[in-house]
């Protein structure tokens, strides 16, 4: 991609110890940026200005911290999965329990931060896109908490697949709009949310659910989610007296992974592993793994790795996990891949499901199907690592929402 501007994929002359991206235009090397219709440019400038002001504002920070503590339930524990570790016979597996957050996943960290920003910008209405429904539920929840109007866009296909979450959002007072255009899934929900935003930009804030979208979203969502990695870092130092050796997380858009990774990017000794949705296998073409098998392109406001055809059309993705079923990925992940600071691998539907059952039985924790992709990597790799090697996996969400999908796949009617 000779046409892209910005530096090649390197952390800069000072190396990773001074890592400080994005640049002023929202670039992570050649990735990121702000590729949206002109009507939205001013809203993005405004959001960035308000965000930078509030990040330096002690009162806002204190408010965010207190909401995370008393409403979300942070800090979440760092749990030593001793039975699993003993069985695998290699590395010690620790789980960062984001599943214990209010609403059951990491999504609420960023939804809460953004809803507080919306409040400070004087916007009375929030919109969100959702795939599996976790980000939609988190947005509807914080909207109820802060007294904001909430509209959630959700692909018609996902509305059908995730009806419990649709009902949950409605109970919380949100309007759920089924999206019937395109492939009727997460990417189309995001298109529709952008169309709403461009129309209602004066009084509406768009809460993007992942570290993608136009600048400043990848930065804002990352920063709000970084509470995961910051806590993990402090917990490791406190209980183990040292940093972990390997961090593992599933990657769809990549917000739970970046939330865990970001506070460790400068520590080059810490290995970062992102696990994408391999669907029926990379060779089948039926997957949702743009970092493993995609090319750089521009979609939803940023340049990143995408799944597209020879003509640049975005192609249909497949994953058993609705939350990973997205053809793009956050631009910072694209950068970390090219710079070889993080490695990205793919895990198939079948391996993720096997890990789901294994961890559920072994540890008494029902993980989300998304999270199960990261757990599958651990089941394969932990046995090969020494006993004093510490792996932290982001247990990004709980699997209650997935029991219907799993029962259906296994021919059980509930």
């Amino acid at each position: 991609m000779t046409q892209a501007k910005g530096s090649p994929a390197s952390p800069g002359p000072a190396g990773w110890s001074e890592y400080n991206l994005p640049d002023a235009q929202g670039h992570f090397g050649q990735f990121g940026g702000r590729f949206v219709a002109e009507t939205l440019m001013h809203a993005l400038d405004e959001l960035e200005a308000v965000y930078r002001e509030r990040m330096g504002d002690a009162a806002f920070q204190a408010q965010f911290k207190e909401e995370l503590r008393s409403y979300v339930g942070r800090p979440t524990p760092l749990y030593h999965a001793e039975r699993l570790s003993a069985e695998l016979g290699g590395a010690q597996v620790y789980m960062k329990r984001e599943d214990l957050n209010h609403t059951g996943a990491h999504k609420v960290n960023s939804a809460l931060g953004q809803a507080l920003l919306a409040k400070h910008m004087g916007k009375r209405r929030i919109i969100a896109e959702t795939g599996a429904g976790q980000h939609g539920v988190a947005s509807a929840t914080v909207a109820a908490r802060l007294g904001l109007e909430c509209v959630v866009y959700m692909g018609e296909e996902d509305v059908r697949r995730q009806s419990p979450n649709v009902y949950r959002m409605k109970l919380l007072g949100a309007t759920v709009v089924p999206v019937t255009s395109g492939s009727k899934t997460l990417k189309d929900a995001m298109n529709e949310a952008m169309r709403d935003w461009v129309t209602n930009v004066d009084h509406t804030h768009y809460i993007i659910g992942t570290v993608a979208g136009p600048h400043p979203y990848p930065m804002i969502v990352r920063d709000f989610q970084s509470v995961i990695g910051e806590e993990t870092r402090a917990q490791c130092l406190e209980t183990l007296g040292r940093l972990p050796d390997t961090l593992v997380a599933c990657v769809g858009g990549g917000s739970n992974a970046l939330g865990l990774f970001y506070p460790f990017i400068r520590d080059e000794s810490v290995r970062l592993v992102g696990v994408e949705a391999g669907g029926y296998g990379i060779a089948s073409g039926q997957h949702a793994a743009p970092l493993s098998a995609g090319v750089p392109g521009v979609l939803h406001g940023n340049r990143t790795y995408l799944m597209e055809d020879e003509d640049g059309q975005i192609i249909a993705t497949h994953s058993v996990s609705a939350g990973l079923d997205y053809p793009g990925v956050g631009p910072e992940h694209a950068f970390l891949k090219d710079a070889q600071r993080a490695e990205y691998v793919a895990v198939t539907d079948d391996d993720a499901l096997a890990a789901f059952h294994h961890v559920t039985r072994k540890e008494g924790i029902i993980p989300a199907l998304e999270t199960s992709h990261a757990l599958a990597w651990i089941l394969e790799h932990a046995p090969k690592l020494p006993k004093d090697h510490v792996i932290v996996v982001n247990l990004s969400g709980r699997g209650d929402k997935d029991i219907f999908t799993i029962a259906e796949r296994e021919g059980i009617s509930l």
Partner: protein
Amino acid sequence: MSRLETRFAARKAAGQKALVTYLVAGDPEPQATLPALRALAAGGADVIELGVPFSDPEAEGPDIQAGCERALRHAVTLRDVLAMAKAFRQENSETALVLMGYLNSVERMGYETFAKAAAEAGIDGLILVNLPPEEADALQTCLAPRDIDLIFLLAPTTTEARARAILERASGFVYYVSLKGTTGAGHIDPEDVAARLAPLRSMTDLPIAIGFGIRDGETAQRMAPLGDGVVVGSAIVRRMGALALEEQPAELESFARSLREALDASC
């Protein structure tokens, strides 16, 4: 003088407004496009924007989304669109032809490859809805030597400082987005547009075309006095989707002529 400048200048000299029309290439099927281009030109279109179908047209309203989906059912590619443009250009050297779409189509082909192919096809300009000027240097470097104008949009939310920066890079014409919304939206407000266009007028000598939400002769007539031309898109795409192949050319020509007459009546 480029074909775009010539067309706008000729209308201005005659005390008229330019008619800019839009259709999605390959919609509802590939063989519909060349007859539709001829019909729009015959009906009095000065500029035709040929939409490059994209899987994720995030700035479009329902009509143009549906048009993209119809074209993509026939797997219409950017190369196909360029071939359609070239076929039209071989028989028409007067009507300005602008490609309109999303950055990923051009990025996938490669900027230089695209610029060369577009020049060979007789393309006069390019509008990429999701390419802001601050990201456009590399592409503009490839287009400029071939006299292909990269046309930028200004919106009701564009600040004055930003408008100045955009207009410094603009060429061909300026596309003024008349409302906050997607293409084909229904809440256009002439007074609001007039108030916002006034300061832009003093910043540029380029022609200003007003688009988004102009659907018929009546709205065209109301908006025309405010700029140098109007853009009509969704209303054409809706007709393409509703009409049988053999009915399309006559309907499109008569619709374009009704817009032309409305514009002439406004002056």
